[in-house]
């Protein structure tokens, strides 16, 4: 289990706001990719691990979920993920 950090830094980030603070499971790990938060400003971009994280719609939208067991997968960089005890 991982939780997406709820930090709100300025600048270009690729972690959607609607997933910040939400808890999910790593669906698969994708390897390391250049950090888009650096690339966006013309820097080289250090290599950071990228994961596909799966959330339930109940976790993301609460009572407003159409079907709580439907899922949403997104690619989140490791430096945005906080490991949780399962």
């Amino acid at each position, binding site marked *: 289990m991982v939780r997406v950090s709820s930090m709100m830094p300025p600048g270009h980030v*690729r*972690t*959607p706001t*609607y997933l910040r603070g939400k808890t999910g499971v790593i669906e698969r790990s*994708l390897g390391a*990719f250049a950090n*888009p938060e650096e690339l966006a400003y013309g820097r080289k971009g250090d290599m950071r691990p*990228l994961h*596909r994280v799966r959330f339930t719609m109940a976790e*993301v*939208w609460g009572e*407003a979920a*159409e*079907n709580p*067991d*439907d*899922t*949403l*997968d*997104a*690619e*989140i*960089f490791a430096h945005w993920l906080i490991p949780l005890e399962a």
Partner: protein
Amino acid sequence: MPHDHHDHDHLSPSGHPYRADNDTQLSYWQCMEIAMRELLIAKGETTAAEIARQVDVMDARSPADGAKVVARAWTDPEFRARLLADGSAASREMGYDVGPMNLIAVENTQGIHNIIVCTLCSCYPRNLLGLPPTWYKSRAYRSRTVKTPRAVLREFGVDLAQDVTVRVHDSTADMRYIVLPARPQGTETMDETALAALVTRDSMIGTGLPLTPADL
């Protein structure tokens, strides 16, 4: 008659308004694009012909490419396994290079329906489907698909049973996605070429289902 206006001014014979000429000034970024392109050509980094060729390459891509990949996966179980394990390698095998991106194929089954969106911008598997449809880039599609995918699907004519799990895939970083739709029933005797004709663009985005032989 073209000049016989009456009260139908500004309407084409089909009843739609004529599109206005784009006589406005170039925007800052349009100027920047022209300046950069002309500099690259002046300095010998590229040529106008090479740029035109790249535009042609992009325009030549179409959902027919993705449909061939899907039809092969339907008929060749080993290819299907390779596609699901490494979408980039499997599509490259068929001549559709995904470039620096990585392709993930997600498979629809009896109990799972997948749908692709990019909430941040418009990430799309262009190597297999060509340019995205305009609606794919709209705020409405991007914001509603992650929150009410079933309502969006109903608007596309896909009404899923409650016991089918919807899996939404938000392309937020370096992956691109294609849906491997479920092979329609009644297609057992069809070959790969005939099957490819059933595979629609929307069925590979997840907003639609493949055609059935009865639709042809």
